């Protein structure tokens, strides 16, 4: 049984009198420890997929299983706990709490989960050992995203979900972030799901899931994923 199983997952939004299927019968598997890149154009249903996988939204039908647990039918509270203990989220715009320092932002996440990692360690791991006490406003975009990643990692999640983590970053910084994510996956064996519209990122993935119009267009397994350093786009 795969670590993550999507089985015929549908998500239908009721827009007035029209039902729009954002996700229309997606099925795929993700194995533990993989770096997965979900790629698709805008409106293909990536965000919906992310929402459902991240426990931010439930599916209309089908089943989503993570680590043997069916999350598609989770209640609000179960979803919250799921997000709290199992998921690490990295946002496109970092979403750091402006009023907290880097360390505090990490601790903000770690304080609420069961087996958190040391904030300082994680920040050192993301290369920010020297900016622990800086406020987000005092950090560059890349640094902020590192703090965000550290925050996600500190929770020691089963699954690290990254939504366009490089979207707000310049090329170089973006690459560094991708490298960080890849290294995290490789070094810690953590399952990382990276959602992007940029097909270039597929090169570094262990598994690529291409989606189009709410369906899985293609799942590719990459036996030899490229290093993020080598990536060009």
């Amino acid at each position: 049984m795969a670590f993550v199983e999507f089985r015929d997952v549908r998500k239908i939004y009721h827009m007035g009198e029209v039902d729009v299927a954002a996700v229309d019968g997606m099925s795929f598997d993700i194995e533990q420890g993989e770096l997965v890149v979900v790629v698709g154009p805008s409106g293909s249903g990536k965000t919906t997929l992310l929402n459902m996988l991240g426990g931010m939204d439930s599916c209309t039908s089908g089943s989503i299983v993570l680590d043997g647990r069916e999350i598609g039918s989770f209640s609000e509270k179960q979803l919250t706990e799921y997000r709290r203990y199992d998921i690490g989220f990295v946002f496109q715009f970092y979403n750091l709490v402006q009023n907290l320092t880097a360390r505090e932002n990490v601790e903000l996440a770690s304080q609420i989960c069961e087996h958190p990692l040391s904030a300082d360690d994680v920040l050192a791991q993301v290369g920010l050992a020297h900016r622990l006490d800086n406020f987000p406003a005092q950090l560059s975009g890349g640094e902020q995203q590192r703090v965000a990643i550290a925050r996600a990692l500190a929770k020691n999640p089963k699954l690290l979900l990254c939504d366009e983590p490089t979207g707000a970053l310049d090329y170089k910084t973006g690459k560094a972030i991708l490298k960080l994510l890849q290294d995290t996956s490789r070094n810690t064996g953590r399952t990382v799901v990276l959602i992007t519209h940029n097909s270039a990122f597929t090169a570094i993935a262990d598994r690529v899931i291409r989606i189009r119009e709410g369906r899985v267009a293609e799942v590719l397994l990459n036996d030899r994923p490229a290093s993020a350093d080598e990536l060009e786009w």
Partner: protein
Amino acid sequence: MASSFDKEIVRSITGTLGRFVAIAAIVALGCGFYAGLRMTAPDMDASADRYYDGTALMDVRVVSTLGLTDDDVEALRQVEGVDAVMPARETDVMATIDGEQYAVRVHSLPDAAESSAQENNATIASDDANYLNRLTLVEGSWPTSAGECVISYDRVMNVPTKVGDVVTVTEGVTDLDDTLVTRTYTIVGYVRSPYYVCSTAMGTTSLGSGTVQQFMYVPNDSFVDSMPYTEAFCTVEGAADLKDGSAEYDELIGEVIGRIEVIAPEREQARLDGLRAEAQAELDNARADFEAERADATSQLDDAANELARAREQLDAAQQQLAVSALQIEQTERQLAQGRLLYEQGVSQLASQEVAAKRQLAEAEDQLGQAQTSYDAAMAQRASLQGALDQVNAAIAAIDKQMADMHMSSVDEALDQALEALATTQGMLEEAQAALAAVDPDDPGYAALKARVETLQIEVDKLTLAVADLQALQVQRAALVEQAAQLEQSIAAIDERTAGVPEQLAAARAKLYAQRNQVNVQLAAAQAQLAASKVQLDSGTSQLEDGKQRYEQGRSDYESGRADYESGRADYENALAEAESKFADAEAELASAQRAIDDLEAPTWLVMDRSKNYGAVSFASDAERVDHIARVFPFIFFLVAALVSLTTMTRMVEEERVLIGTYKALGYSRARITSKYVIYAAIAAIVGAVVGIVVLSLVLPAVIMEAYAIIYSVPKAPPCVDLPIALLSAGLGVGVTLGATWAAVTATLREQPAHLMLPRAPKAGKRILLERVTPLWRRVSFSWKVTFRNLFRYKKRLFMTVIGIAGCTALLLTGLGLQNSINDIIDKQYGELVSYNAVVVFDEQPDDAVRSETEDLAQKSAWAQELSYIAQGPNRSDIMVSLAVPQDPEAFQELWTMRERAGHEPVNLGSDGVVVTEKLANELGLKPGDELRLAEQDQMGNATSQVYEATITGIMENYVDNWVFMGPEVYKRTFGVAPEYTSCFAHIDDSDEAHETFGSQASALPGVRTVSFNDEVIDSYKTMLRSVNMVVVVLVVAAAALAFIVLYNLTNINITERVREIATLKVLGFMSGEVNAYIFREITILSIVGAAVGLVLGVFLEGFVIVTAEVDQVMFGRDIHATSFVLAFALTMVFTVIVMTFMRRKLAKVSMVESLKSNE
């Protein structure tokens, strides 16, 4: 045509209704409160004006110290500007209604009242233009006959009354006989009077507890006929058209008062003259009566005196007579005694004379007896001789007689004859014997001759015997004669011897007899004389006895007459003395009456406007108080409105940075862009202002007047919006909002468009001071850290929230504190300070028996003298105070704790000065050591120039009424007289029965004037409290509204501004509770801080309101209770929690998807 820009404005409103409403609501609240409160006073004034005009409340009241006459009334009518004049009578009495005593002001009910008609709640129509102070009959009917009355509908009474209850007048402010004819009235109806719009301030009186508690209208004829009008009510032409209390009104009334005062001296003099003349006439009458009476009495007395003199004379005569009688009696007695002595002498003389005479006589008789005896013996001899003689003689006589019988002269003859007769008879017998021997015996004649011969024979025998006898006789006779001769001889001898003796004896006897007779006669005469004198003596004695008795009678008659006379005399003298003292009294009285007339001072006309009417003044001043509060209170709302607008609009501008940038880029002018926000804010503010002003200026005055309706009977005028105030209020509200908006917008507009197009850099996190305290900071969790940092990050919001919440708490605290303060009046005054609950007032100091009887009725009691004065000090000189002089200050303090308010230090009532109550000291501006001036008051309650001074030694906590306490020594020193303890302060059981028992028993004590209970006072404050409760409700509602608006706005801004953060937290797996806490913690802290600030602010606000709302006689409690602090705080928190609960939904609705969106 609406431009796209305009459309955008409209849409921005509809799109952000929450924000729009927030601004509108706070502006509504601010403007509404300001307008509503500010309009309350004009509304109250307008209501009063309408009511006063509708009921023809007097504009001017003229009171004369000696009453008014019809002429005065006529003179008043003639005064230019005076429209209508209604003369009236009034007097203050103590009356019992349902067993409770009240100080009642009794008014004469105008006749026009009955025919008046109520047009609406504030207008009474009457045909009689001179019917003023028109009454509104609320219940029942008008009095139609004597003994009926109407009383106040708005009554503050212990016991509710009903139609049919009886009002018994027990005592008057002056002699009831001079004022009221009828003393018992049946309540037939309840009225409202514009003259008494305030049920707790009807005026002062010298009766009872000093304040009028009830008014009563009775038919005019219930008053004593001779009683002059006590007052005249006037209305002024054109005054009704002016607003009561306005400057024009005051000016107009002032002019008329001036004109009335011009005629016043003349009228006063006329009244004086009239009264003088009347009094003089009366006095003259009285004098004449007196003189007549005196003459009468004098003549009666003179008569009595004459009579007495006569009686005296008579008595004297009687006495003289008695003396004479006594003398006579004495004389008589002496005479009688003498007579008796003489008599006794006479008797004894007589007795001795008698004895002597008897002896003489006896001797004489003896001699006589001897002589007699010898004579008798002789005589007896003689008699025997005689007897013998007689016998002899008798024998001779017998013989003679025998002879005589034989018709013989003597025996010899008889013998001769007998011898012859024998010889003849013998011769015949021989012849007859011869004849017989011759005749044959057979011849007839023989027998006869034979009988003859026998008879002759017998005869011859007889004759022969007789001749023999005769011969014997002859012999015997011869012897006898001899014997007789002898005897005669003896007799002769005796006779010879006794010759003369019988004569002698007879003479002696006669002599003796005569002597005896003489003696007897003499004795008898003496006896008779003695008897006569005895009789005389006896009759003299009995006469004397009679005389004596008569004398005694006369004497006792005299004595009783004398006694009668003496008592009559004493009576007379008493009567005389009495009459004289009466005359003297009457004379003195007349003299004093004369003096009184001579001294009669001209009455003073007191011409008063409505400002002397307690009700009207009280109402107007309450309106003014409301206005004072209204000027300060809404400040908070405006401040908060400004802050809310500022934060909201700042947020709005920030949200629309990009849009602003776009507009700028598109070439819209700065002014144009600014206009959008200004218009937005203006619309919100105007909408809010209009709604707030319209709603609250209708609601607030109504609510406040409703609250005041508990005390005031002024019917509310139809609601009206006072335009200037409304505009001012709206201007303030809108202006503040626009100012804030403009400030918010201009700051942003200064930025370059390009810069504006970029998402605004999130406001940098900053270290706060707290972080410097590392050990503490380390212990703080992140959400707390965020909270703390946020608090200081958004200072506008901090201020808005803190001020808003502080305002809310302050309002709550003010309301609750106000309640405390007024509750404290009762609780502290009657719970802590004062433990007496009844006061018995006597007409004069009762004697010990009554005192102890009174004391026995109560559980505890203390005696004091109670007096009224006007207290004067540097700040004020018109405060009416009660002066209490406790007989035993220590005992008194057991019933009335004297202590300082702060610290409860006991205050000592010593012999060096007075203790005054706190409020009084504050009002007068006096402190311990200062001199308190106490002025006597005149009839009208104004201070006179008679002023006493005393040093203040202590200031004591007290809430109800102004008191001055003075020890007996100080009193004596200050006033020069000893206090007269006429008031008994008593503590009795709290139960109704105990009160009733005490009331009836105490009232029955001799000399009791009034029995009053604290319940009355407590009740009136409870009434006041009810009106405060309504104010508290208004404040709580306002506070809640304020809290809701501020907190809603804050939360709203916090949420909208931090949607991303919230979404991120959610994504991070924060539980909804944690998310709520993360956001609401800030609000909670702000609320707590705001509430804490509000508690401080509230103390000041409450203080201001208390001081503003306080009335003269009362000191409100100065403490806000801990529970009120707690409650105000807790209520604020409750509001916060309610807002948070409400906003939680909004928070829950924040989608996690927001976290994925880019910064805008």
